[in-house]
């Protein structure tokens, strides 16, 4: 029993959608008892060799020790678990399959419910659940919400009526914002990972975020989709000049080594400004759009219990970017709407968010059966 007198529901979460192998135990959809991510875990020592970056074999090798570590850190055994949840979509099919197979095997052998969770919906819930100090009613009062997922693989906007009722409003039509950060870092010759490197460079004294006039993608007038491919190409031309004709060897006039540190700093700042601005424009459009449809709803049904958007939920690794955090916070203040961004450990890919959202899915929709499969695409 927990302090409120209820029996705690303990859920093991598993996440293998991309590079990270992760497992976590969460109690009652909000208290994170353990949260283990392989890249932060010293498996190199354990296996005495290189752990491949990508690939299902890496997940397959890591998954057992990671699950064991998640249980050990929570001070639990398999017998204590009430359910097992897995991020089963979207992602690389071979990677997802490892997590799905592990979760099914555990659910079957322990005879406990199985839950399949959409990785993107879990990122949104990670923002709403906060740091574990809020009670269930407080978390529920954050909905309906506007949700934003910004990461290396995803850039998407959602309307969230509740943790389990989401509707996708828009998404990137080409590169994800985190991918743009990484590729611009590569163009500038900055070390990997690119996001923090650009963030740091752009924050240096003297950085001029208007030194380069880079395009801010808006797409159609009422589009809620994103596009980062044009911005990436504009940075390429700003850094490398013009392409050389083929008879002069092809390639470009120059590369990042020909730029001074101040120029690189200004490119980073100008890129970051354009990348963040595009997100803020889409958030503003989405808030306007949702307010409009809400007022239409009220005209038709004056006593409708439909409520306006109460908060802004932001998840995914790019939400660690200092400028984006600052601009989103300012937007929230201007629009009088609360903004929730998870701590770093829950921004990046992790399994705690999977286990936490699974609690709501289990109580509202019930468990999945053992025919649960890995799905490469996201749901609504």
């Amino acid at each position, binding site marked *: 029993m927990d302090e409120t007198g209820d029996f705690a529901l303990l859920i093991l979460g598993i996440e293998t959608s991309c590079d990270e192998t992760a497992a976590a135990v969460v109690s009652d959809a909000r208290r994170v008892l353990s949260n283990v991510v392989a890249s932060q875990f010293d498996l190199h020592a354990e296996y005495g060799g290189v752990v491949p970056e990508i690939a*299902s074999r890496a997940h397959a090798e890591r998954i057992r020790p990671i699950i064991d570590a998640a249980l050990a850190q929570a001070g639990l055994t398999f017998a204590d678990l009430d359910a097992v949840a897995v991020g089963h979509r979207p992602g*690389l099919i*071979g990677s997802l399959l490892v997590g799905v197979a592990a979760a099914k095997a555990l659910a079957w052998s322990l005879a406990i419910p199985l839950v399949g969770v959409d990785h993107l919906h879990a990122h949104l819930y990670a923002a709403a659940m906060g740091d574990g100090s809020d009670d269930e009613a407080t978390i529920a009062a954050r909905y309906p919400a506007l949700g934003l997922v910004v990461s290396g693989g995803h850039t998407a906007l959602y309307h969230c009526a509740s943790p389990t009722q989401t509707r996708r409003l828009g998404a990137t039509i080409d*590169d*994800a914002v*985190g991918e743009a950060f990484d590729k611009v870092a*590569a163009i500038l010759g900055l070390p990997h990972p690119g996001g923090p490197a650009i963030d740091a460079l752009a924050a240096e004294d003297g950085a001029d975020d208007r030194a380069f006039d880079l395009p801010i993608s808006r797409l159609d007038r009422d589009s809620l989709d994103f596009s980062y491919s044009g911005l990436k190409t504009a940075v*390429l031309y700003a850094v490398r000049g013009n392409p050389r004709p*083929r008879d002069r060897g092809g390639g470009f006039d120059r590369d990042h080594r020909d730029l001074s540190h101040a120029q690189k700093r200004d490119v980073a700042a100008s890129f970051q400004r354009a990348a963040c601005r595009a997100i803020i424009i889409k958030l503003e459009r989405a808030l306007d759009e949702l307010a409009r449809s809400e007022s239409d709803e009220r005209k038709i049904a004056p006593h409708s219990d439909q409520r306006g958007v109460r908060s802004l939920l932001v998840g995914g690794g790019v939400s660690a970017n200092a400028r984006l955090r600052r601009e989103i916070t300012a937007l929230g203040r201007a629009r009088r709407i609360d903004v929730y961004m998870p701590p770093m450990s829950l921004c990046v890919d992790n399994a705690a968010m999977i286990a936490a959202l699974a609690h709501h899915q289990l109580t509202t929709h019930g468990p999945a059966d053992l025919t649960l499969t890995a799905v490469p*695409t996201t749901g609504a």
Partner: protein
Amino acid sequence: MPRSEALCTNLADTATLSRRLADLLRPGDLVLLDGPLGAGKTTLIRLLAEALGVDPRVVASPTFVIAHEHPLPAGTRLVHIDAYRLGGHEPEELELLGWDHLTGPDAIVLVEWGERIAGLITREHATITIEHVDEHSRRFTIDLPEDWASRRPAIGAAPPAAAGLRPTLCPVTGQPVSPDAPHYPFSSERAKWADLYRWFSESYVVGRPIEEADLDQGQ
């Protein structure tokens, strides 16, 4: 390997090229795309996907998740892979990626940054190399396997490029045709007559009512 080149100065040109290429593609085909950052690999794949019947809005960059799959109208699959993050050194890398699961006789497979895994690929494939010419223009160098050249385009093949003669693929034989060829855009007189015969025999049809504007073309 038959090689052809196309210079596209805008997106409409690239869309025309994509429709021609899409007509040549069959389930089981593999195409490697190369070119530096910002060359337009994802853009070309989006246009190819659109020509194959996929909603272009869902064709995004798979750099992070490595692969995206799109169902095609015929019940087959379009598999869009990005090898940007792959090393291409270990022969088992493709296997670890789930290559056999992703690719198959029912899949048209398009790979961005194909050069990174080209050394691991033993099966027949086409290669498309994209070069920056200026901010809006790109040069496409297309190498097709020998036997793809004899493929016939699907019924309802793409219309000829709107303006300016540029190297193209013969709609009948699939062979590359240069703008100064005597029977452009066909590779031979025989191909030209074969194309006309397809109209007469109604294996080519216009899928909508003919409008006045259609009759102005070619003047």
